[in-house]
């Protein structure tokens, strides 16, 4: 296995962009190619993550369409789909192709266009990530899944609603200074606990907004990275696991084992422990998810994820900074673009150039989760020595 580095990156802002998936993908890929000294002829393959373009736009087959539109005609391309983890999977596949020597330079992208869809079509598309034969029939939604999660979690740990609300308050504070975020206005604990119920005990401000967006990376074998950029970021560990098909399939609903498995693999490969990390971008599609993810990633003991946020431990200047970008709760959740968008944010951190910079960040983790914990990718990244 060869070492793999990120040598280029590009993104759109995440928000209401009035553009389809192909155009967002083209913009992101074009920007990633422009960010480094990679010629079109250098690129061996393109992997693109997307979730619902087929349902919402009637547009499938977008990986070769994007490739042709950016001047990469002829190379092998493929789309990866794993609900909200679609582009985390794209990165994983591209990483494996480079690590094993199949390709030397690969473009990885994630893209989604959601906000122009009607609400009914939009929710139908999102719910297709659940098992439609079992829980889908009951009417359980994804806020509902995390409503069940939080109901059980609060029952087991005595966590208060106000402690849970500290998470969206933190992430919206961070998002306020991120020009790539959809929501840039801070909120208070009262705003959260007085917002309307969506799936008890989950409320509106516990839920991330939809967004349109695209993000892309250029990755390469590390021994070629210095030819392509002065500032490579090394992929130190990559984990990818599948989990449970529904809430009823968990023995302990508050531990999403796909995260535990993917993280364990990524930590082992990177030869680090969670306490070594300087900055984390994790999958906070709901406040409850950030609590659980932070525990499943081994950053906190079970039952301490919400109190850590309430005590400021996960703030930008805290001991365990989580989602200094504002996370999905602020940036928005352009589903298929989310995983690469997280990597974009931590690369800025490792460059020392983030709007919410964590002092001296050298070791970072991204965590991308899809469905009812059905699929997860975890990536550990560090400055290339």
């Amino acid at each position, binding site marked *: 296995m060869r070492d793999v580095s990120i040598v280029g990156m590009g993104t759109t802002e995440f928000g209401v962009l009035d553009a389809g998936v192909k155009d967002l993908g083209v913009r992101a890929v074009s920007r990633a190619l422009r960010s480094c000294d990679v010629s079109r002829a250098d690129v061996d393959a393109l992997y693109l993550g997307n979730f619902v373009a087929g349902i919402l736009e009637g547009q499938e087959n977008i990986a070769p369409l994007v490739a042709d539109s950016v001047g990469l005609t002829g190379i092998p391309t493929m789309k990866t789909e794993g609900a909200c983890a679609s582009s985390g999977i794209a990165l994983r596949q591209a990483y494996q192709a480079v690590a094993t020597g199949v390709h030397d330079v690969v473009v990885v992208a994630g893209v989604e266009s959601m906000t122009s869809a009607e609400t009914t079509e939009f929710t139908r598309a999102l719910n297709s990530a659940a098992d439609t034969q079992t829980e889908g*029939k*009951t009417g*359980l939604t994804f806020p509902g899944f995390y409503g*069940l999660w939080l109901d059980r979690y609060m*029952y087991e740990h005595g966590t208060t609603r106000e402690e849970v609300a500290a998470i969206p308050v933190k992430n919206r504070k961070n998002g306020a200074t991120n020009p790539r975020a959809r929501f840039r206005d801070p909120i208070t604990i009262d705003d959260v606990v007085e917002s309307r119920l969506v799936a008890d005990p989950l409320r509106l401000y516990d839920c991330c907004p939809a967004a349109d967006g695209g993000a892309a990376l250029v990755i390469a074998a590390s021994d070629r990275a210095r030819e392509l950029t002065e500032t490579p970021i090394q992929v130190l560990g990559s984990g990818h696991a599948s989990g449970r098909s529904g809430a009823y399939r968990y023995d302990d609903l508050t531990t999403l084992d796909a995260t535990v498995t993917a993280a364990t693999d990524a930590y082992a490969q990177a030869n680090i422990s969670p306490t070594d990390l300087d900055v984390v971008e994790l999958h906070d599609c709901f406040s409850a998810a950030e609590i659980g993810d932070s525990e499943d990633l081994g950053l906190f003991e079970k039952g301490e994820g919400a109190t850590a946020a309430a005590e400021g431990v996960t703030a930008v200047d805290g001991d365990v900074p989580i989602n200094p970008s504002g996370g999905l709760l602020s940036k928005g959740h352009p589903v298929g673009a989310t995983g690469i968008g997280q990597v974009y944010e931590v690369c800025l951190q490792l460059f020392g150039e983030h709007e919410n910079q964590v002092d001296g960040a050298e070791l970072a983790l991204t965590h991308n989760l899809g469905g009812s914990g059905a699929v997860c990718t975890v990536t550990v990244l560090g400055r290339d020595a």
Partner: protein
Amino acid sequence: MPAFPATECADCGELYGFPVVACRACGSESFEAHDVDGSGTVYARTTIRVPGADHQGQEPFEVCVVDLAADIRITARILDNPGLSPGDSVQFVEARDGVFFFEAA
């Protein structure tokens, strides 16, 4: 008290709440209907106030994860009782269009 219509693997005896086409434990594709005690306990509960496309107009409604006495865990609906919490007792009422409905016991 209605019994719960579980499914049993004909080869290894594994019990399932939702219908299955292959046994997770042994790979068998042979199953038999196997009624079990319809009493259960709430493991987790939520109230859906913003429904998906196929459940418009039913809101608010309660979805729960229920543990049956026969060691089967399923996701189900609770009939109009937002007050239930983890640990509370429920009783199976009926299965309709592939959805299991429970009520407070």
